[in-house]
């Protein structure tokens, strides 16, 4: 059986011909719209996944306000701000990649997507530096907590929230980077055109959601 990529022809504009339209869609627009709607539904479930963590944050903060304030002072605001700016910039490059892909400018889209992946890797490196410091200090969840500078009760609880929220977010960053790399490779092969660019758009939507979650995590963990 031949793969669909090798069987596809190249159009006069130099794009790979899009995959065949599934028979249950009347038009390409109809198909793209359905793919987009499916992605938004998925993002809705992601919002509800992170909802639990945010609710946990607010409940534990209400119970242990002193330790949450003390712990926030021991997080590096500089690193948190740098990470926020990195993610916002990567969201811009992803949006620009989408803009280029829907015009068939695949090479531009490729470089913009790769820039986003590099910024995602930068985000993870900064996070790793922060995690290493927390492990060194003993600012850890549960029975592993041995950080003497947080004296108020509830310190280990803050680090449960911190590691769980940022850890789950970091997993999303890794998945997002994988998706962006996958569509970047397809951009390099000139698979996208004004009639077919849904994978770039959907991978971009996922990446923007990763950004959205961090926009809330940054002030709640580092600043408040």
């Amino acid at each position, binding site marked *: 059986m031949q793969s669909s990529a090798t069987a596809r022809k190249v159009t006069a504009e130099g794009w790979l011909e899009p995959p065949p339209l599934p028979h249950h869609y009347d038009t390409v627009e109809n198909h793209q719209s359905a793919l987009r709607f499916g992605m938004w539904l998925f*993002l809705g479930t992601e919002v509800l996944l992170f909802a639990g963590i945010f609710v946990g944050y607010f409940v534990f903060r209400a119970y242990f306000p002193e330790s949450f304030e003390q712990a926030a002072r021991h997080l590096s605001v500089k690193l948190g701000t740098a990470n926020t700016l990195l993610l916002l910039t990567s969201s811009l490059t992803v949006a620009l990649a989408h803009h280029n892909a829907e015009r068939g400018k695949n090479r531009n889209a490729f470089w913009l997507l790769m820039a986003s992946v590099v910024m995602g890797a930068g985000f993870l490196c900064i996070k790793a530096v922060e995690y290493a410091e927390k492990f060194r200090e003993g600012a850890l969840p549960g029975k592993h907590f041995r950080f003497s500078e947080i004296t108020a009760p509830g310190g280990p609880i803050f680090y449960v929230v911190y590691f769980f929220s940022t850890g789950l977010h970091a997993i999303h960053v890794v998945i997002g980077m994988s998706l962006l790399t996958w569509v970047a490779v397809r951009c390099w092969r000139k698979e996208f055109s*004004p*009639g077919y660019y849904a994978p770039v758009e959907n991978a971009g939507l996922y990446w923007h959601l990763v950004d959205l979650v961090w926009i809330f995590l940054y002030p709640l963990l580092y600043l408040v």
Partner: protein
Amino acid sequence: MASLTHPAGAQAHAKHETSPWRLVLNWLVLCGLTFATFGLSTLNMSPGGHLAAALCISTLKVTLVVLIFMHLWHGEGSNRIVFVTSFLFLLVLMFFVMADVSTRFTLTNSRIPPMPKVDQAMLPDGMPPAMSSGGPRRTSGPVGNE
């Protein structure tokens, strides 16, 4: 197969396009709001004030990302409903949980110490068996493995 690269579809979508300059401008505003969040956190305000300010700016940033970067401004109504509904459900969850937490009185959150041991000899006649430290007494009679 001709419809796959149908120009009409592309043109219809292009009518609602977001220009690259608008994307860059949005990014600049988002960076500015990030610094504003940071600046506000250094001001001398109450913890509640800090929290409210941070949440307001974050909500504004999220709105900008969703409307401009994620193209929901020009997006189909169905997509808007999905995302707005999921956020509303998040608010419902958060509101009721926080309403519960903030209206509890102290005793419901405190640990109640275990019942102290009771000297059986001190108990007056007719006290229920649950008052004793050993828990409910067994009824008399043989206890077999049935």
